[in-house]
């Protein structure tokens, strides 16, 4: 989706969204003249908004939260792969 649709759905200020992109909290595809946001980008923007508005986390804090969260998802994805491979290996041994 374009910036306009993201703004409609999140009620965020375009300026704010641009700051988040500059800080690399959001990584939409496309270039400055035409960003293309995914549903994941939108959900991530809502999460940042929750952190800021509901929890009162400041910008420094948000950068740390996002960094740790991205690591957490990396580890979860790794664990999931290992579990899948595990199941495959057992399946192979049975056959």
């Amino acid at each position, binding site marked *: 989706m374009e910036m306009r649709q993201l703004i409609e759905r999140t009620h965020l200020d375009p300026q704010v969204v641009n700051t988040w*992109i*500059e800080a*690399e909290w959001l*990584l*939409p*595809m*496309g*270039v*400055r*003249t*035409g*960003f*293309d946001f*995914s*549903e*994941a980008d*939108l*959900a*991530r923007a*809502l*999460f940042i908004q*929750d952190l800021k508005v*509901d*929890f*009162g986390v400041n910008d420094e804090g948000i950068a740390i*939260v*996002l*960094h740790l*969260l*991205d*690591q*957490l*998802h*990396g*580890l*979860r*994805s*790794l664990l*999931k*792969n*290992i579990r899948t*491979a595990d199941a495959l*290996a057992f399946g192979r041994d049975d056959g």
Partner: protein
Amino acid sequence: MAGDPYATLGVKKDVSQADLQKAYRRLAKKHHPDLNPGNSSAEEKFKGITAAYDLLSDPEKRAKFDRGEIDASGTERPHQRYYRDFADQGDWSGYTTSSGFADFGDFASSEDILSEIFGRSSRARRRGQDVRYHLELSFLDAINGGKQSLVLPDGSNLEVNIPPGTRDGQTLRLKGKGRPAASGGPPGDALIEVSVLPHAYFKRKGDDIYLDLPISIKEAVVGAKVAVPTPGGTIAATVPKWSNTGRVLRLRGRGVPRPDGSKGDEYVTLKIVLPKKPDPELEGFVARWQPAEESPRQSMGV
């Protein structure tokens, strides 16, 4: 939300707004689904907490609830899609990082761990994700080709080689310029969708260029050698004498370059224009001129 919002937030009936917010933040931080990617009950709890807070943080609603005029139902926020639902689909996104286990050395990536454990050399290594970009080109840059620089969201530059004759809507693929693979596999590609801006006077149809060329009455009547713009630069072309508006000159090989090295043509449609300012001399001798031919609208029966 069922039950007592005060109990949900663990506060007393006479809690101040400040303490209410504190209690809410303490619980919400603990139960926000995005901070609990693996806990499926977090979402339900979080919904209850936010609903309770939305009710009690509004003094009017809180008073109504205290007087028993409303109950705690119907105050849930509309369902929100959480980031964890996307991040947890198993695939790596641009956000996911392996820095949480980069120090495992040889085990730095999940695919490596897998092949280490199971010795599955045949397992295809997963490529990094392709990334789509959009690039706006001027009409002539698209036709003549050349290098263009694309500024990425992270501020870095990507040099894009535009092949001559690039079309509107065409996608250029830059191999290996996409996201890096999480697993030591090859990086993805950058897919660049090109849109070409219109030109002030050139039009393109396939590999041919179309142009309306204004000429003066004198050039039309007695003929002339005139300068004609083409995508490759200005060239001289001959307007034959007695050329009417609508006459088309074909300039062979002056169109859009094709991949095989040949070029399309440029079609120049002549358009007779009067001088911008009224010219008494011209008016004078046209008024004296007695055309032999009848009305040029004869074919229309008028």
